[in-house]
């Protein structure tokens, strides 16, 4: 017979305001097996835990039920407390009377009844609980970073700094990410290339960091400390080891009409290309969609001119497998296609550009050599209109709009305005905004500089229509000034759209592989919005950069460092404690059907031939299920699949769950 103690928490007024906690404690006293019950203001506090510990000792308890918040919050707290006084931690059960009771109900009487029911169910389970012991598994001391932008590079460098090997997998031919495409950075206006390319070189030269560029992670198996990832190295048709990056092939390639992604498709590149001069690794890549040899079997010039003999048209995608202890997700972002917002005429005029396109037009390494001109006729724009929140802060998502603020647009627009005014002081600049949001160190000062020092016109209001006039070549902008309550008409030369930021297109696939959760907008969810901001709820998976939500460069770098610290904290451990609540088969009941093996998402179940002594004293070989306890995550899929009821989950056995249900239905 168990001797069970029930501890009811008030959680300040969180529980006590809706649930009569004293009544719950009193009701507990009447439940068979309960030898002690009490209520307390904050059970998770030092004093509350002491009450639990002292009672275990004084009353010689064998089991504990804590009626409090979600087990996600404090199950571990109370298990540790129990274990410190010699009780097996798995003899502690939490009855969640906060999230699942007091927070969601208003009627005090009914909520109290429900809390009593939940308490009784937990007691019924503890009656059947057995002590469990968790095993341990070793940790693979290597990290995988998915994405080679500023977030991924920083995380990799910080992990490498602690002495661990790191692999960066980047789907583009070069690392550097979006930051390398930027011209200048706010609010200090340092040149983006000047700060990001040295970082890229640092990554390339670090012996602990290995770059898999032009590669994708296609499969991830395993669990925290023991992931196995499959990396697809896309065929580059150029041998990375032989290529010297001389660029001769790119000069001689006759196929020169390929839209240049690096310049947001505003320029052209050759079919064999190096994205930009400072690319890392600085090796050429052949684009199989455009290469004349690969599409038509002709040409072959690059292979003839390459002195290193690096061109290999027969190259195939290669798959490599590697083991990792931790994974960092740094998949970054894209801008939405503003084509759906055709009131801004993005699809109708080349002079309506996105901010990232404008960034390339400003860049010295861009398609115009840093000379700001209109894409349509190459003339310098004299009047530029910036439109903020294109697709951001929009509830109506039929156009692909986002409900959230994209966060960086206010600042980069102020930057664009200042830089434009710096280079071309006679340019007239108007910004239409909903709100100007500039929280951040030196951010508001920067925005005010744009307004006060540079004379940029900020108009609070929306643009209703941009009408390209093919005769005058102007873009007729019709907007509203909400402060003056006036219609505004501007004949602009260029219109720049601050299109909303959305997660990278590859992010969902990565999330699926990692079983990492995403929010409704496709950003990776953190384990706790405030207290665990760089961890995914999936153990061993860490987050940084825009993959987790819109943020600027300093925040991204800070978050990457935090993710790296978490990874290091994991990798320095030699072994990890396993989950004790794992599946185990009753071998006498198992009929060897293999159903459990098929449903197990972790590959934890195998079948073995085993000799059994039968009741008639004969021996018989039988095929039975076997669970690898280090791999089993205790999801329970096998237990509900098993047709003979042979599979059971320790800590959540069928009998324990039925006892809970019985207690609730009593």
């Amino acid at each position, binding site marked *: 017979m168990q001797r069970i103690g029930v501890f009811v928490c008030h959680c300040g007024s969180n529980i006590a305001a809706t649930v009569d906690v004293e009544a719950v404690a009193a009701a507990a006293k009447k439940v068979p097996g309960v030898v002690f019950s009490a209520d307390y203001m904050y059970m998770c506090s030092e004093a509350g835990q002491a009450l639990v510990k002292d009672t275990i000792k004084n009353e010689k308890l064998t089991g504990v039920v804590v009626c409090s918040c979600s087990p996600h919050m404090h199950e571990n707290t109370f298990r540790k407390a129990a274990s410190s006084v010699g009780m097996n931690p798995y003899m502690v059960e939490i009855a969640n009377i906060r999230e699942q009771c007091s927070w969601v109900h208003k009627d005090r009487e009914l909520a109290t009844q429900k809390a009593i029911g939940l308490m009784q169910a937990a007691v019924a389970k503890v009656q059947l609980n057995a002590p469990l012991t968790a095993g341990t598994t070793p940790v693979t001391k290597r990290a995988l970073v998915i994405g080679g932008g500023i977030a991924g590079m920083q995380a990799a460098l910080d992990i490498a700094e602690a002495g661990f090997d790191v692999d960066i997998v980047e789907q583009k031919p070069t690392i550097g990410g979006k930051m390398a495409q930027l011209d200048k950075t706010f609010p200090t206006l340092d040149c983006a290339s000047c700060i990001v390319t040295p970082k890229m070189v640092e990554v390339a030269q670090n012996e602990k960091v290995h770059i898999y560029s032009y590669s994708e992670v296609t499969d991830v198996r395993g669990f925290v400390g023991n992931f196995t990832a499959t990396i697809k190295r896309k065929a580059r048709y150029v041998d990375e080891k032989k290529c010297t990056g001389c660029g001769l092939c790119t000069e001689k390639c006759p196929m020169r009409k390929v839209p240049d992604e690096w310049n947001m498709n505003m320029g052209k590149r050759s079919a064999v290309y190096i994205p930009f001069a400072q690319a890392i690794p600085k090796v050429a890549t052949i684009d199989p969609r455009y290469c004349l040899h690969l599409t038509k079997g002709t040409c072959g010039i690059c292979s003839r001119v390459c002195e290193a003999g690096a061109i290999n048209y027969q190259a195939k995608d290669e798959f490599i497998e590697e083991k990792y202890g931790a994974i960092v997700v740094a998949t970054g972002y894209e801008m939405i296609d503003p*084509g*759906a*917002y*055709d*009131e801004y*005429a993005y*699809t*109708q005029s080349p002079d309506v550009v996105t901010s990232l396109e404008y960034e390339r037009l400003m860049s010295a390494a861009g398609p115009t050599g840093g000379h700001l001109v209109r894409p349509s006729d190459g003339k310098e724009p004299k009047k530029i209109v910036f439109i903020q929140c294109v697709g951001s802060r929009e509830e109506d998502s*039929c*156009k692909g709009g986002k409900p959230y603020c994209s966060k960086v647009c206010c600042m980069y627009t102020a930057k664009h305005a200042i830089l434009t005014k710096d280079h071309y002081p006679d340019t007239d600049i108007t910004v239409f905004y909903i709100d100007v949001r500039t929280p951040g160190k030196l951010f508001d000062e920067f925005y005010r500089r744009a307004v006060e020092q540079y004379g940029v016109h900020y108009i609070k209001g929306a643009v209703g*229509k*941009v*009408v*390209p*006039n*093919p*005769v005058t070549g102007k873009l007729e902008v019709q907007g509203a000034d909400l402060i003056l309550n006036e219609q505004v008409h501007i004949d602009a030369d260029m219109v720049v759209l601050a299109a909303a930021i959305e997660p990278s297109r590859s992010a969902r696939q990565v999330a699926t592989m990692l079983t990492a959760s995403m929010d409704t907008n496709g950003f990776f969810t953190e384990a706790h919005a405030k207290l665990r901001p760089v961890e995914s709820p999936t153990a061993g998976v860490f987050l940084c950069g825009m993959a987790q939500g819109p943020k600027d460069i300093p925040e991204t770098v800070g978050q990457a460092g935090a993710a790296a610290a978490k990874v290091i904290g994991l990798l320095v451990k030699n072994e990890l404690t396993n989950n004790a609540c794992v599946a185990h088969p009753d071998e006498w009941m198992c009929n060897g059907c293999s159903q459990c093996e098929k449903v197990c998402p972790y590959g934890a179940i195998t079948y073995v031939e085993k000799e059994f002594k039968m009741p008639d004293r004969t021996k018989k070989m039988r095929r039975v299920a076997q669970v690898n306890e280090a791999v089993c995550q205790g999801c329970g899929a096998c237990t509900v699949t098993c047709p003979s009821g042979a599979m059971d989950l320790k800590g959540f056995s069928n009998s324990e769950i039925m006892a809970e249900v019985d207690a609730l239905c009593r």
Partner: protein
Amino acid sequence: MVYSYFPGCTLKNKARDLDLYGRRAAQALGVTLEEIPEWQCCGGVYPMNEDEIAVRLSSVRALNYAKENGGTLVTICSACHNVIKQVNNDMAADGTISTHANNYLKQDGIEYHGEAREIHYLELLRDEIGYDKVRAAVKNPLKGRKIGAYYGCLLLRPSNVMKMDDAEHPTIMEDLIEAMGAEKVVYAMRNECCGGYQTLEDKEVPAKRARMILENAKDNGADTVITACPLCYYNLKKQAEAEGVRVVYFTELLAQALGVKDENESAAAGDGDGAPACKCPMAAKEETK
């Protein structure tokens, strides 16, 4: 194919071309538009009367007739289309309006909950007949004509109810223009408001809007602008001559392409600019000014 057809008041007066050529073109394409008996005004200016039930009743009567006669109601006037489609949506989705309207209509023995389908003539062409069939039936392709579609507001918005086409990127009229053998002209102002009923208060408002629209169409190369709305037609037509752009109903052009328009007939049928056939309030007001 036979469809229930709701012409609407204006198509019997100022916009008779829209109606006449619409029916004729449909006939040429093998579709009969059967005018529903004893129809009444659609209710008009629907959006101004958010909580008014009475203005919706005639639309519900027309929809109920269609429900019992083939299930689909066709309109050509984009204002009627807008009103009836929104009412149909309310009857299916808005419990308060639906209950109130049905309480009124009980005495007529009507109970209606949005069962009928309401489509615009353009949707009839695109989805029921098919533009391929239209293209095949064209006898006089409008070769060399550069035509801009003018949508105005009522055809496309509110887009989540009208569901005809993308409100910013419509193609339904452009595809028809191409099916008729003409060259489409896409211009930014094609889905902007013409000024609408402002013409009753201040004539300069729609005049300015119409000039902006027509100038934009002309600058993009259009010689003709087509519309499905009598009010847009009215507002645009007033500036058409000065801007040097022809404004016609899309059905007239369709009838011409299908070879069912008698070239001498247009004036007799009553052009929108001609003398009104009856003294409708708008015409009367205009004359007194």
